[in-house]
């Protein structure tokens, strides 16, 4: 029982770490990209937004396969030696959740942008200062998008399995362990991990909902 508990804890922490890293990576380019997209209301920007919207439902195994081909020894980035490392999973998941972040940020910021941007600019803000004001006014919306992305990263299986390789004590995360333990007939561990996963995503979902409500009563 003691060993089981420690294993569940280790896998949970590793999952949070890997998917947390993925989320931070995705934030680092999704926020600037979203700000650019909503500040230029032309056809190209609308096209890119539609494109990201379509990518939200990208099957994780397809992304995993593509990354595998790129990162494998004979692939173009094979020399980096990233395949079957936690970083490979983080990178894969960060790509996976970028469309979610960009779509949620751009759509929820659109109306806010018109008001905040116009107000800040006319009161003398530079475009940079206006962007800061927009982020500050939209903090809740932003956190909401980030949580949704994190939730998707924690819960996905395809990328973690294909580019992570499910190596014990190294790249094994909640979803991949559940899949593996089930095939081995080890239901006990699988169920514990399933409960942890469900709890995590419920907490995040509730947080997203309640932030949404608070945003609405602004």
């Amino acid at each position, binding site marked *: 029982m003691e060993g089981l508990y420690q294993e569940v804890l280790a896998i949970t922490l590793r999952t949070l770490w890997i998917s947390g890293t993925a989320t931070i990576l995705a934030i680092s380019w999704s926020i600037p990209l979203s700000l650019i997209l909503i500040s230029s209301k032309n056809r190209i920007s609308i096209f890119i937004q539609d494109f990201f919207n379509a990518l939200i439902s990208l099957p994780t195994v397809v992304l995993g396969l593509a990354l595998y081909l790129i990162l494998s020894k004979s692939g173009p980035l094979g020399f980096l030696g990233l395949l079957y490392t936690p970083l490979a999973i983080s990178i894969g998941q960060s790509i996976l959740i970028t469309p979610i972040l960009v779509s949620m940020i751009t759509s929820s910021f659109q109306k806010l942008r018109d008001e905040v941007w116009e107000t800040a600019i*006319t009161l*003398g803000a530079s475009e940079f200062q206006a962007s800061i004001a927009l982020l500050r*006014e939209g903090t809740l919306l932003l956190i909401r998008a980030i949580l949704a992305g994190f939730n998707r990263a924690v819960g996905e299986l395809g990328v973690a399995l294909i580019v992570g390789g499910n190596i014990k004590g190294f790249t094994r995360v909640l979803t991949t362990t559940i899949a593996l333990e089930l095939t081995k007939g080890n239901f006990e561990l699988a169920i514990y991990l399933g409960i942890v996963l469900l709890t995590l995503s419920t907490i995040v979902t509730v947080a997203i909902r309640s932030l949404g409500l608070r945003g609405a009563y602004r």
Partner: protein
Amino acid sequence: MLIDKMITLENVWFSYEDEHYVLRNISLSVCEGVTVIKGPNGSGKTTLLKIASLLLKPKKGHVIVEGTSFWSASRSVREKLRRKVVYVHEKPYLFKGTVYDNIAYPLKIRGYDLSRVVDVAKEFGVGKILNTNVNELSAGMRQLVALARTFVFKPKYVFLDEPLANLDDENKSRIIRIIEKYARKGIAIVVATHMNINFRKEIVSKIAFMNNGVIVKVSKYK
């Protein structure tokens, strides 16, 4: 009147969507004192104000600010000119935080001293609610805060969109008095409205009547 001390629209055309012009061939200059733009709902007052306050770029024509054609100027020149001009929306957006935070905002981003905030707040009748969160304000209060935030940084050109909407009689006359006071100090104030506002005659420099995207008549008083 000095040409280089004003904002002039020259043959301005504007459309939000392609092909449908909501402003057609507008020429108008804004100078010291109060300029009133009157017209029914949907006639283009707000659009005209946003163009003159440098927020919207005309599809055709020029916006000349103190002798410089604004949209052909470099980015740094544009930022400098823009800082003299301010537009107040009919339903103003207030930033999250307190009344004080909002009135201080234009001063903060310019790196100015914040000591004026309290006096200006008093002048606009919001001195007692400086620490109130803006979530808790009524529509009229929000309007007063937005106006205080506008005049606090001593702009040269002020564009007010329906500034008396939501205000009760006491606050209406308060705002009219304040507009007149700043106009007398040499600020150019443009007021768009569908109402009749009783400004003192000597303050009003011109009234432009709009209908369906064009200026149909201008009455000049100075």
